[in-house]
């Protein structure tokens, strides 16, 4: 599956460029012909990536019985955050035999880069894990020096199921709004298809990166639905509702606005993404997923959705 990893990430970067070049040079009239001729080809690229993602998710599901890796808040278990600089090696050596599924994350301060805490996660009960850590470290864990979060396994299963339900409801509600907004089938379906890809591709990337999703992470996918759709609305309304210039010019104008919007949204979320540590886990995941999703959205809006809209306009004779 490693090949697919590189496959689904590289084209994303490569293919933004041809489009940008294509369109930015369009006023000179040179490459306009190219876009007109090959735009359906551009549609193939995101579709391949989407298919690869879906296949990857399918294989992932058959292997793991689920489409994501869940953290303890969604699979049940304990997460203990120990404040201060903790020797991870000693702790790991001591815990590994009794808690084979134990995992560690370090938290650093944003400015000083000093380690501020170590997170220990396991599916074990909080009392067991706590007392074992206490005996290794040689001091008691109190609320002065640690945080302990425990989620029972049946509750976490429930949470997970509900969040997935919420994601589906959210998608349906978004689809209804889009249909009400445009009232025509193909353009609406194109937007909804692009949003679907905006969720499916990041899901696959999150799996490839082996990120364990928390409840907040899944909530971020819901937000992604709302967040990524505005460029699609921009594109569709510019293409269909206004009559200035050619369809290419309108798509290009929408692209210029939209890509800047995505850029701004990305710079809003990227600082949290680079300064990944030293922030609450819920916070980090929300921004991580928005960052991945917005990048995927560039592809899905300006290759998938734009191509479908152009094709639709050609069929309908919209100039």
């Amino acid at each position, binding site marked *: 599956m490693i090949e697919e990893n590189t496959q689904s990430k590289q084209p994303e970067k490569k293919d933004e460029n041809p489009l940008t070049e294509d369109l930015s040079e369009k006023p000179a009239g040179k490459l306009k012909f190219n876009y007109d001729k090959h735009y359906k080809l551009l549609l193939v690229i995101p579709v391949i990536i989407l298919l690869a993602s879906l296949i990857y998710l399918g294989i992932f599901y058959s292997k793991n019985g689920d489409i994501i890796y869940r953290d303890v808040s969604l699979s049940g278990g304990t997460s203990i955050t120990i404040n201060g600089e903790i020797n991870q090696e000693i702790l790991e050596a001591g815990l590994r035999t009794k808690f084979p599924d134990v995992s560690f994350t370090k938290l650093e301060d944003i400015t000083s880069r000093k380690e501020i805490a170590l997170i220990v996660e396991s599916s074990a009960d909080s009392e067991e894990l706590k007392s074992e850590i206490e005996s290794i470290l040689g001091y008691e864990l109190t609320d002065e020096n640690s*945080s302990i979060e425990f989620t029972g396994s049946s509750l976490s299963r*429930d949470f997970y199921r509900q*969040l997935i339900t*919420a*994601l589906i409801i959210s998608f349906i509600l978004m689809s209804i*709004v889009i249909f009400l907004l445009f009232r025509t089938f193909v353009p609406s379906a194109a937007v909804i298809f692009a949003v679907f890809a905006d969720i499916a591709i990041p899901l696959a990337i999150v799996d490839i990166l082996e990120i364990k999703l928390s409840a907040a992470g899944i909530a971020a996918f819901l937000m992604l639905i709302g*967040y990524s759709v505005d460029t699609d609305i921009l594109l569709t309304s510019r293409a269909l509702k206004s009559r200035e210039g050619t369809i290419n010019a309108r798509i290009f104008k929408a692209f210029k606005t939209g890509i800047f919007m995505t850029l701004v949204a990305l710079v809003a979320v990227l600082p949290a993404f680079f*300064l990944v540590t030293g922030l609450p886990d*819920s916070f980090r995941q*929300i921004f991580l997923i928005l960052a991945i999703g917005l990048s995927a959205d560039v592809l899905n809006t300006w290759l998938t959705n734009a191509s479908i809209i152009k094709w639709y306009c050609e069929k309908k004779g919209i100039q």
Partner: protein
Amino acid sequence: MKLGLRLWILIIVLLLSLLSIAPWKMFDKGVSIKSVEANSTAFNQGLKQGQTIEFVDGKKIDTLSDFSRIISEKNFSSNNSMKTVIITNQGEFILFSDSAPEITVSELPKSNIKTGLDLSGGSRALVKAKDKDLSASEINDLVDVVSNRLNVYGISDVQISSVSDLSGNNFMLVEIAGATPKDLKDLISQQGKFEAKIGNQTVFIGGEKDITSVSRSGQEAFIETCQQAADGYACTFRFTIYLSEEAAKKHAEITKALSLNTTQQGRYLNETLDLYLDDNLVDNLLISEDLKGRITTQVSISGPGVGATQEEAFNDAEENMNKLQTILITGSLPYQLEIVKLDTISPNLGREFTRNIIVLGILVFIIISAVLFVKYRKIKITFSVIMTMFSEAFITLGIAALISWNLDAPSIAGIIAGMGTGVNDQIVIIDESVSNRHISIKERIKRALFIILGAFFTIIAAMLPLFWAGAGMLKGFALTTIIGVTVGILVTRPAFANIIKKMEE
């Protein structure tokens, strides 16, 4: 330049938000009363939760340490009543007592913005009945009993509520700010079914029906003896309870039938009074002969405490006593409970997180401003976008303060993400209005608003399900996002469109 109506609305809403957030509170001096023990001297004199203590005995109180220093310097000791004069923002209170004022205090909040447990520290427990689905009214009864129990135990600053989730499950949510009591788990989930039995007959049970009062201090509740035991020390606590007439009669009837036993310690009845807590034997008490067949309302209850050192054993006994007293007063919970989620967050780490989030917020602000300036190269436009972005975040905070919403990390993520969508909308407005100059600016703005409204409704639709999923744990994320975009649509976006229109004209 004349300000339009929309700009005036923005300015007024900003001022209201400022009032709501009240950042000047950070200059306030004093300490705030978090809780007052029921029926204590402090309580009877009228001290109340929420009052701000400004002076104690004429000395100014600025911080928490001022307060604790002055109180500890007074050296309260029993049988020596002292006068304490407490001046609060709601008047002067004079206390005569041999013990320190029975209140807990905390530092004054720096503003009206409240942060959630993951940033301020504290504990949160989500509780449900074991093997039983509780109805909404059953949950409400449960909330009452547990609130009472935590109050009696002396835990302050606790919020208990019922929450339900997407699949119709009802939970009890217990949130405690600040330090976490050691035995929180027991207090919340222990059913606390207390029974006093002689043989297999129940004499009385916990709760106010059988027990009219429980002594909690002085000569009638204390740690009796401490001895070295097999592995460490063992102490015994003892306190007096008063039975109702009915329970006392039952006691008389049952003891009447018992015979006498002569032991080295004295003459006792041949059966003991066995105390059970959740069906586990806590202690058995010998019943002295003079109680046989007598209607007595006064019963002495005892129990153990153990520890490696004498001090530990003493503390353990004290804790067990407090817990048992609490259960006897409040009675048992109607169901066996199960804690399905228990989080205790260290206030120290929360402070670190808060600091990092503020740094991040400022960073995001600066980077967005820089990107906008690079793109538009116009101070005026860049400045309006930034001010609008700032206004949105500020008004969202103001509304959160107004509805006393506890801002947790996801809520703040929602505000930052909301800032991102806000800027996006303004980019649409700018691009729509500076292009297509051959159509009227009004028409151009209208087109921009179509896109913005579309994006607004989709984000609302997308976030709505989060209000119910996962027992509302992520409600904050949805709430701040929705508040943010709504403020955008109703207040800041029209004002911004106005500014751009003016610039265009």
